[in-house]
């Protein structure tokens, strides 16, 4: 008879001895169910496990502590289904003309466009001083923290904050939308600049190129496709945000029409029509943006 002793230390990978002797004994690690453990012990597996357990725990706490205000759940669901049917299956336009809606959609489109243009412009300049490989590390840290704070404030709050001094209207909407776009784009532009190979920049530096020469000859050509792709993605987000801001802050465009139909006139049919218009517009933008991404690459 032969004995097989397997010393199995997989994560560290130090030992992997197999000795054959008379009787068979296996020292394989087993879990609580008696199964042989086949996955490696690693920090990332542990982190994933802890994260999943804590997400489940937090969700459970959330559901236990929510104030449901004694809602009749079944009744509410039935009412919701009925409303969903009205909105999505019986859309109709009663208070406005098709041209009027198209114009409001165009206004929303233009609000998103203005915010994207301004946001991209400022973000492009700011990201140059924010990318660690071409800028001073201290400056990069300061700008990155500032941008993180700006990004943490929801868009609608920016619009409402600016509306106090600028008045509710396109100015407040554009400035508010621009703030969040600027912060978001600065982060993603800086990340794509940081991905440029260190060799390119070093070579230019060794040649005695100054900061702007490095920017024009290395940074912009290398990152252009990413910048265009991100900017278009941001435009899609800005369009959706412009709808939301129009609804929640009364900043104009089709979002405001939606808000009026839903919360003032309680006209679900009109809400359905406007929703379809927005959905079609979003899908068209998505298709265009995918096309542009493939062209740029």
């Amino acid at each position, binding site marked *: 008879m032969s004995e097989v002793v397997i010393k199995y230390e997989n994560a560290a990978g130090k030992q992997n001895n197999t000795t054959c002797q008379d009787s068979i004994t296996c020292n394989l690690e087993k879990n609580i169910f008696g199964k042989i453990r086949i996955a490696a012990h690693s*920090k*990332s597996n542990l*982190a*994933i496990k802890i*994260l999943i357990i804590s*997400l489940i725990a*937090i*969700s459970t706490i*959330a*559901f236990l502590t*929510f*104030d*449901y*205000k004694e*809602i009749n759940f079944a009744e*509410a669901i039935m*009412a*919701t289904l*009925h*409303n*969903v049917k009205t*909105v999505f299956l019986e859309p109709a336009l009663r208070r406005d003309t098709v041209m009027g809606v198209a114009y409001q959609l*165009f*206004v929303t489109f233009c*609000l998103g*466009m*203005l915010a994207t*243009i301004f946001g991209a412009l400022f973000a492009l300049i700011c990201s140059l001083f924010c990318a660690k490989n071409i800028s001073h590390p201290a400056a990069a840290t300061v700008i990155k923290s500032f941008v*993180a704070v700006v*990004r*943490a*404030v*929801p*868009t609608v*709050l920016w619009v409402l904050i*600016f509306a106090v*001094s*600028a008045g509710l*209207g*396109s*100015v407040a909407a*554009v*400035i508010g939308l621009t703030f969040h776009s600027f912060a978001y784009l600065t982060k993603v532009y800086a990340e794509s600049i940081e991905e440029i190979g260190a060799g390119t920049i070093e070579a230019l530096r060794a040649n005695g190129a100054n900061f702007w020469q490095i920017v024009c000859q290395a940074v912009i050509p290398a990152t252009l496709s990413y910048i265009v792709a991100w900017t278009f993605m941001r435009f899609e987000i800005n369009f959706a945000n412009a*709808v*939301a801001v129009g*609804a*929640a802050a009364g900043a*104009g465009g089709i*979002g405001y029409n*939606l*808000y009026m139909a*839903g*919360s003032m006139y*309680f006209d679900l049919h009109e*809400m359905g029509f406007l*929703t379809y218009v*927005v*959905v079609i517009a*979003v*899908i068209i933008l998505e298709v265009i943006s995918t096309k542009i991404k493939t062209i740029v690459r």
Partner: protein
Amino acid sequence: MVKDKQTIFQKRKIAYFTVFSSILALYILSSIVTEFKLTDGVMAFPEAASWIVHKFVPDAKAFTRFPKIMDRLLETALLSVAVTSIATVVAFIFSLFGSRTLKSHGILNQAVRMTAAFFRNVPDVVWAMLLMFSFGQNILTGFLALFFSTFGMLTRSFIETIDEVSSACVEALDATGANFAQIVFQGVIPSTVTALITWALYMIETNIRSATLIGILTATGIGYLFDMYYKRLEFGSASLVVICIVVLVIIIENISNKLRKVIS
């Protein structure tokens, strides 16, 4: 050679000029349509900045409301975590049937993709207003509105992830005769878990911001508190709400950045 170089530079000049002028044209068109005046924007900016510095700071009254704000903030944070966790699970199950890699039935495949596209593209404000009619000023209004948009977004991302990451190991498992459950648990989940968690963490961050917006519309959570102080012109308290949101978002962002580094 010299001529070639000239044409390259000329071409580049023309390209830059075209891009620049089309952006300018878009800007002018958009400003006319939205009645946006750059001068107004520039003028409003310093005024708004000085207003923020002088008036939009927490006052003594705001700090007495701090416990109430924290209470609502915690509610909103719990809401966005719970929404994202449940949406992740549901979206994952849906994405299994929407992915081409797992060779589910063609009609099912298309149906899942269409459903996801529908939920993703209907704005969350529409869901919020629609649910307001039936659920009223209830936390479930915000929960469901966020759930629908998160679900749509995550399903699309998960389908893409599964198609990108797992095709090789799904094929290998398929060849060994593994059944659907075995393929999912031994192939799809282990190979995509990192990406799935990265998406879920990203959605938690996004949902806290969206929850504020939906809160304003449906009068729940932290958004309602901000809206109430804002409309009563109690800007000190409103600013404290904003500061609390910023701190929460930054804490969550940092935690998820650390986790992402450990996981990948």
